[in-house]
């Protein structure tokens, strides 16, 4: 990493204006149409929600250190796990990679000046803010205790918490997703630079295309569901509550019709990031480009047809359950295809182990476990025993945290030099990546065993014989917490004290590396003309590798 000062030496004498220095007033940020500035504002807001959700997680783990319900009252605990879920899913995981990295990188990667609809992009940020403030307000008023799944009739008739206010927040927040998805689809269709054909797009872009499809097709359904819930709660029209003529299972169908595809909103962008990281840090064309690209689309499509696997024990017809179980098994195949292709990409590569690559390799291991345990839960006879236990909790944390959060951190580290123009400390980066990996496994692996023992989720108190594994889990959560807090410190430190990154510190071929770091407001000084294939690491890609190597040697010496 010693190369960067040398590379950027030319720039240092004559600092070109970039998107960060182009206007420093608050107004220039709040009224910006620049996708990069919007991404930075998303980064800050999403981090706030991640931190808040993390505090709730810490409370959960501390309460579960002992079998009794002793640290907080049961009523508080119920609110804590509900709010952990709501903040993490709707305000952290869903916007994390698309709204931050996707926003920042999509136009850069396809050689565009901005997203197709810059004002809509800013609008989606404001919608996110309004929804977020509303939900935070509801939490301060006393919060909500229904579980993030809001199952009726508990949520509609029995809960005395701020269901409507939080529901309204989620309803509003959905429009932020829809607008972001819409914007991405239009941008990918209409804004590609000359020569940037569909099959030259980075896989990050393909993954975001698939994600956007799910966002605009799925999110309206959660809006409809929340609206129906409001109608029932306020107007007492029987929709979900059987005592006034509704059907509680209908709520579950509607809820999971969105929320299962939402799982893919949360994991597909992570898969996109990891495809970038693995190919680039192995300096190797991705193995089976088309298969990875189309497996993203396949996951998005099949993801809409498996929602019923959340209802195996809910009173859904047995034969409906079998169809959903079958489709769930089918959706495992495209994920397996990705896994094999990533592994094959490493073959005969030239692999360097920078911090982002450590995250990518961590992702492969954790997502493998997350995906395989998904098969356990898709097998109906087994899931009768496992559903609603800690096995489920462990499984979806392996996918959501082990998958999406790890990929998100890998992506933030990888593109940090591009976003800020500075390098972070590689030493602390590696330490934190390893702490996250170890802490994560220590937290969640014991929960698989607890789940098979039968420990139900959402329990403030549990039988005493289950304490040992819970202590492991809480210990792991402490390590994980430290690992996650560290980047906040060294990344912030790098903003001021970090080495200048230079335009292309890794000598990677993506278009985003062919402009300055940080990029100018209009992204490229002149319209790029793409003549090379995706992930082309040789001289054909137009990168001056010989020169870079010489500079590298010079700095080392």
């Amino acid at each position, binding site marked *: 990493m010693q190369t960067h000062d040398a590379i950027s030496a030319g720039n240092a004498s004559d600092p070109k204006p970039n998107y960060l220095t182009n206007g420093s007033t608050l107004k220039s940020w709040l009224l910006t149409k620049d996708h990069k500035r919007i991404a930075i504002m998303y980064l800050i807001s999403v981090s706030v929600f991640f931190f808040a959700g993390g505090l709730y997680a810490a409370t959960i783990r501390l309460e579960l250190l002992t079998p009794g319900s002793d640290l907080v009252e*049961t009523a508080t605990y*119920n609110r804590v796990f509900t709010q952990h879920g709501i903040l993490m899913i709707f305000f952290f995981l869903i916007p994390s990679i698309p709204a931050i990295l996707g926003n920042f990188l999509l136009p850069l990667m396809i050689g565009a000046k901005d997203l197709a609809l810059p004002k809509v992009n800013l609008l989606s940020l404001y919608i996110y803010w309004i929804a977020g403030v509303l939900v935070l307000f509801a939490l301060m008023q006393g919060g909500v*205790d229904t*579980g993030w799944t809001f199952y009726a*009739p*508990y949520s509609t008739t029995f*809960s005395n918490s701020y269901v409507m206010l939080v529901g309204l927040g989620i309803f509003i927040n959905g429009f932020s997703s829809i607008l972001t998805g819409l914007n991405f689809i239009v941008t990918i269709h209409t804004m590609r630079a000359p020569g940037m054909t569909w099959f030259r797009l980075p896989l990050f872009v393909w993954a975001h295309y698939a994600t956007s499809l799910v966002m605009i097709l799925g999110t309206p359904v959660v809006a409809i569901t929340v609206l129906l819930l409001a109608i029932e709660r306020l107007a007492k029209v029987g929709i979900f509550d059987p005592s006034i003529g509704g059907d*509680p299972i209908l709520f579950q169908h509607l809820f999971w019709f969105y929320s299962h595809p939402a799982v893919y909103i949360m994991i597909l962008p992570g898969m996109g990031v990891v495809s970038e990281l693995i190919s680039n840090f192995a*300096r*190797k*064309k991705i*193995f*089976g480009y088309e*298969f990875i690209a189309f497996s993203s689309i396949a996951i998005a499509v099949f993801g809409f047809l498996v929602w019923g696997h959340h209802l195996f024990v*809910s*009173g859904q017809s*047995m034969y409906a359950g*079998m169809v959903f*179980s079958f489709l769930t*098994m089918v959706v495992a*195949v495209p994920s*397996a295809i990705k896994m*094999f292709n990533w*592994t*094959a990409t*490493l073959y*005969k*590569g*030239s692999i*360097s182990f920078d911090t982002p690559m450590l995250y990518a*390799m961590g992702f*492969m*291991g954790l997502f*493998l476990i997350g995906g*395989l*345990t998904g*098969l356990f839960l*898709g*097998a*109906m*006879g087994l*899931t*009768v*025993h496992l*559903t*609603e236990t800690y096995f489920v909790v462990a499984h979806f944390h392996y996918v959501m945290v082990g998958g999406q959060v790890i990929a998100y951190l890998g992506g933030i580290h990888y593109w940090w030099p591009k976003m800020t123009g500075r390098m972070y400390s590689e030493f602390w980066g590696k330490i934190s990546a390893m702490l996250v990996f170890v802490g994560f496994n220590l937290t969640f692996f014991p929960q698989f065993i607890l789940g*098979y023992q*039968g420990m*139900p*989720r*959402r*329990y*403030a108190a*549990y039988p005493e*014989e289950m304490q040992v594994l819970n202590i492991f889990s809480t210990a792991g959560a402490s390590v994980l917490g430290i690992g996650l807090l560290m980047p906040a410190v060294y990344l912030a430190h790098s903003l001021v004290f970090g080495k200048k990154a230079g335009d292309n510190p890794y*000598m990677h071929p993506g278009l985003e590396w062919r402009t300055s770091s940080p990029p100018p407001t209009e992204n490229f000084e002149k319209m790029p003309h793409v003549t090379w294939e995706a992930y082309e*690491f*040789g001289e054909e890609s137009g990168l001056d590798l010989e020169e870079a*190597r010489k500079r*590298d040697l010079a700095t080392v010496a």
Partner: protein
Amino acid sequence: MQTTSWVPLFPEQASTFAWQVDALYFYLIAVSIAFTVPIVAAIVFFALKYRETEKFATPEEMHGSMVLETVWSIIPFVISMTIFLGGAIIFFNQYTPPDDAMEIYVVGKQWMWKIQHQTGQREINELHVPVGRKVKLTMTTEDVIHDFDIPAFRTKADVVPGRYTYLWFEATKTGKYHLFCAEYCGLNHSGMIGSVIVMEQRDFDNWLSGTVSGQTPVEAGKDLFENKLGCASCHAGGQGQRGAVLEGIVGKDVKLVGGTSLTRDDQYLRNSILNPSAQVVEGYQPIMPTFKGQVTEEQLNSLVAYIKSLSPNAATGAATAPATNSAAPMAANTNSAPKPAAPAGNSNK
């Protein structure tokens, strides 16, 4: 609660499902290892062998391989189908209650389990069952969704307001096992726990006779039917009665006004009491008033049990006592008089 298994940290196996579910579990663990070990080994091997030796190297290009892609699509698909089939078969067993099972009623309520045996015994948060006997739970709830979960039996089912759900099992080992509510149900969800106590048949018989209290569901239902709710005035008038004939109907198909037809089961009886005009049998007028709000879930269970007892030939559970109308002495006012021990028809053979 007992941990005598040879696998550490493994739950007790106490029902006929346990070995099936566990076998599928171990099969899946084997599949997981068969995928994880080679993939992780390959990643580690490649990572070591092909680590960067020269900055910004340009390794030889490879575009992919149709053969490999096909192979690694088909193998996971085939394996996933074996998992699907195994899971579906076990699920079919778990969710198909046998006809000869002993029936027990369960009503969930924030935050307790109310259980009633066919012989009239009631218990709360405890379920006593005999070992080696098929038991079917007919379950509903007074308020929100709950879930009746017995990990040692490897089975559970949601308990849903407004409908009946069923859970069945055959315990294989005496002992005391955890009973959990597995579907989040509000404030004291984690306190909605109890025990399933599996006993030898003779201990169970003793337990049953030792704690007799109140009426059997059929007797209670008969009381409601004839005295408290006045159903008998329309449904037990013999020829020319205004209401539908109830004798011998359960389990039989019937045509409804509007052309659809259905099998008259528990759910149908329940719906017909709560919302009579929704499913009117062809040939009748929708004149019956609704009883929604006038009967509790437990009274509903009793009414259904009584109406089912009027169809003695229907296979609705071996322990359902056929309390026919000819049992004249029992038709007397039974409101307050404590009943003697259950009649012979109710005891376990």
